[in-house]
């Protein structure tokens, strides 16, 4: 017969084994936020393993600085062990394999885009929140101006805008330019990459030049104000500001449409806003609010992403001088460089979907209406598709870098990357951003002789020597040295 104190002792012993005493007294491991150590690239924090040796995945890692700079090993864990991962902290399912994602993207009945994601409110009634026929009709209203013949018409203007900006490097502000001993140091972002896409979007939309000054405010605030951010209100204010601005333009252009001209001054047809003013859906003209939403999407989508891509491309190329030299030698390789950049360090992480009914993927039952994040970034690093996916290699033979296809490309051992998504909702700006990135870079490469990264100005990785990785961030600053003559 055991005594009372034995029993009390046995309770205390069991209790202590179940609850870490430091949790009772201190603040150890209480919140859903945790500092993770920064690991060497490609290695992950040890999050433990389950009873079968399968690595565990701590959802807090996804909110950590470590994840943003070194996401590759974590997505590999998800792809290998949790192809459908349920993050209970943010009530979201993650699909991380290339093929799974492709199938989901194609099926816009089962995986709809109705606006339960975080972007609505800021962007307005945008097409990526529609499905089916409704989506196709509205998307084509503006999408048609960003592809094919319309796009070809814009190429001279893109070249002109890039040349203008690069010609102006002599007049850059001293805070982003230094000349010393025949070597010029510039910060590529503020000198070129931030503003170039803005000028292109302005031009394509037919905005007056003075609109450029509002642009940074609009797209910084709108992109920064999406959803779960502190700056949600600022995003909505910026959208309102954009809407007020566009409303006046729309009012004007409904009466007096404006036209685009080529470099020689020949008329090439109406600009997008003038055309949208004439567009009809089911016999009704678009309201100025609807036009604003479409424009907000072009503004937000056309600025941030392209500037990120140009920065990431130059950073990656200049870290691999052999590849950079090859591109300079053979301009045809810029396409491959552009696509490899988007595959390797895509500035957009993924896209949300909601399942219309209960679905089961890889044995995981996802109840209807759940938020499912298609992790484009992870799909592009899927070793089932791309060999050595974490290496930047513009010569890789498994990446398709031909004409962009909405259906994606997956033939003869070559696959398209996931950065633009695939299927009906593939990025409508993909084609124009491709032209911007490639044309801008070609002209830049001609002017920047013997370009190289100014390593002393760049942030370093944890070892204090190598350059900081891009991770799933967009590069903020890129300091480049080049020879003057």
């Amino acid at each position, binding site marked *: 017969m055991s005594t009372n104190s034995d029993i*009390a002792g046995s309770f205390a012993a069991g209790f202590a084994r179940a609850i870490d005493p430091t949790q009772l007294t201190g603040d150890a491991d209480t919140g859903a936020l945790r500092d993770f150590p920064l690991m060497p690239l490609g290695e992950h924090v040890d999050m433990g393993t389950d009873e079968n040796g399968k690595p565990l995945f701590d959802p807090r890692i996804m909110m950590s600085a470590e994840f943003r700079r070194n996401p590759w090993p974590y997505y590999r864990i998800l792809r290998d062990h949790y192809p459908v991962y349920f993050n209970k902290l943010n009530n979201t399912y993650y699909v991380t394999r290339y093929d799974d994602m492709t199938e989901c993207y194609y099926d816009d009945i*089962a995986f709809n885009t109705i606006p339960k994601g975080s972007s609505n*409110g800021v962007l307005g009634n945008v097409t990526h929140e529609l499905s089916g026929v409704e989506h196709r009709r509205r998307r084509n209203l503006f999408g048609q101006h960003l592809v094919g013949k319309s796009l070809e018409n814009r190429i001279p203007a893109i070249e002109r805008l890039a040349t203008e900006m690069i010609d102006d490097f002599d007049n850059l502000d001293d805070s982003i330019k230094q000349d010393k001993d025949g070597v010029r140091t510039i910060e590529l972002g503020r000198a070129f990459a931030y503003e170039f896409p803005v000028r292109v979007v302005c031009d394509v939309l037919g905005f007056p030049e003075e609109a450029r000054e509002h642009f940074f405010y609009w797209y910084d605030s709108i992109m920064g104000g999406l*959803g779960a951010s502190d700056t949600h209100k600022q995003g*909505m*204010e910026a959208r309102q500001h954009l809407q007020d601005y566009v409303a006046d333009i729309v009012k004007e252009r409904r009466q007096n449409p404006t036209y685009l001209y080529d470099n020689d001054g020949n008329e090439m047809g109406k600009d997008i806003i003038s055309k949208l003013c004439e567009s009809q859906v089911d016999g009704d003209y678009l309201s100025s609010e609807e036009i604003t939403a479409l424009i907000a999407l072009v503004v937000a989508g056309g600025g941030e992403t392209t500037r990120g891509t140009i920065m990431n491309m130059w950073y990656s190329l200049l870290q691999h001088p052999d590849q950079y030299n090859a591109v300079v030698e053979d301009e045809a390789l810029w396409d491959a460089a552009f696509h490899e950049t988007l595959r390797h360090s895509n500035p957009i992480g993924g896209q949300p979907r909601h399942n219309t009914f209960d679905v089961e993927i890889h044995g995981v039952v996802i109840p209807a209406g759940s938020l499912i994040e298609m992790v484009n970034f992870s799909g592009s690093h899927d070793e089932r598709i791309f060999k050595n996916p974490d290496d930047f290699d513009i010569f890789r033979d498994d990446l398709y870098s031909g004409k962009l296809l909405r259906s994606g490309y997956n033939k003869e051992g070559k696959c398209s990357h996931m950065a633009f998504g695939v299927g009906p909702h593939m990025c409508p700006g993909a084609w124009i951003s491709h032209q911007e990135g490639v044309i801008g870079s070609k002209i830049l490469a001609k002017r920047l002789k013997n370009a190289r990264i100014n390593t002393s100005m760049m942030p370093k990785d944890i070892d204090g020597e190598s350059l900081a990785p891009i991770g799933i961030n967009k590069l903020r600053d890129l300091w480049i040295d080049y020879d003057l003559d």
Partner: protein
Amino acid sequence: MADRRPPVRILGNAKPSLSRSGMKEYVRMGTQADLRTYEIYQRERVHEATEKIRPIELVSPEFVRDPYPVFETLRENYPCYRDWMGNAYWLTRYDQVTSVFTDDYNFETRPKLWFYRMTGYGRDLRQEIPVQTVIEKTYDQHVVPLTEQLIADMKATGETDLATAFAARLPLELLTRALDLPREDFSSFVEHYWLMQRGYDWNPVAEKAGRQAMAALADMFRPLLAQRQPDPGEDMISAMSGLTLEDGPVTAEDIVVTLLEMDHETLHGALANLWFLLLTHPKERQKVEEDQRMMKFAYLETLRHSAPVLWKKRFTLHEVERFGRLLPIGGLFYCAAGAANRDPRQFKDPARFLVDRADLCQREPRGHYRADGLASGIAMGLGQPSKHPALPEDRPRSLYAITRDTAVTASNLLLDAFPNIELSPGAKPTLKSLRLGEMHTCWHLPVHL
């Protein structure tokens, strides 16, 4: 638990096929939502921006320690707050929280087993009458001798920690009595039971420990079940072994799942919080000392003032328009009982602990949350409040009532035994959750007897 989802309708001509990825074409399990092509959910305007709170505050360490400031911001500004980061909605007003708790047609309760992603592991037998009868009987029978035994243990030392020696221990002692476990298993039962209860939420290490603990508990119950099936005693395992269920005989896993869903949090949390509040509010304690009948009111007021279970999750079963919003199917709702219980629309001076509060209902809520024209605190009892206002005589009391009576009886015995009980000098007890989403209670309550 009965499946309240709408009947499954197989869609279209979806034929299972094997794709290149080897991902078997996802199984279309039926429709719940009609496909919408042009619909607007929560289109917010500038003036509706929720800039008084950042979603990260809902997972911060400060929130884990003291959620009430954040609750107040939400309740007074954004009664149906869209938390983009957590992909959820927060309900914080009394009327709205109760309206969801009592609306099984539109809102689904997913069992803890679902969060373990182990649906089908075992059945929840809490609602079986023989099981409830045994729980009522054993709890009523054992609460007095057990509390006396705990008191004797405490007397031997003179100083003790009420949080562990009383509030944490009593519920598990009662549970072992109800299960009639061998004493030598007590320590390992405590460990595994706790690990199981702490594992179903977001922490993967805890989840793994929880899964292992469930397996260990099943191993512990399996021989007992085999032994008691032919020769039943008067305990929960025997009661369960005698059940005839439609889908097969009772297994050890069913017992584990029943314990998982039943949990101990209200009893444990209420005891710890009740004594924390009594010891830190001498005036209120005096009212209880003068008239022991006040202990019951102190218990109810504790659940209102410092609810150990701060919120429960519900999911929308249909698209439904509520709280000024069009709510999508599958939306997650945090129904914050902790916030609703301090709603000044219902309770005067709600942050004040007042055992003889006039605006708190003193009766068990039965399917609705008000009686006598008064609002009751939302006590997250063991199980749902019973649905039927008129219960047959032979039905056991609800788990809610059993828990309340147990806590009140034990607390009165404790107060009798130690009339001079005081906080240890220098002690500064507080309430906190050990992890985000876990019970909010007092873990360290050192007292001088």
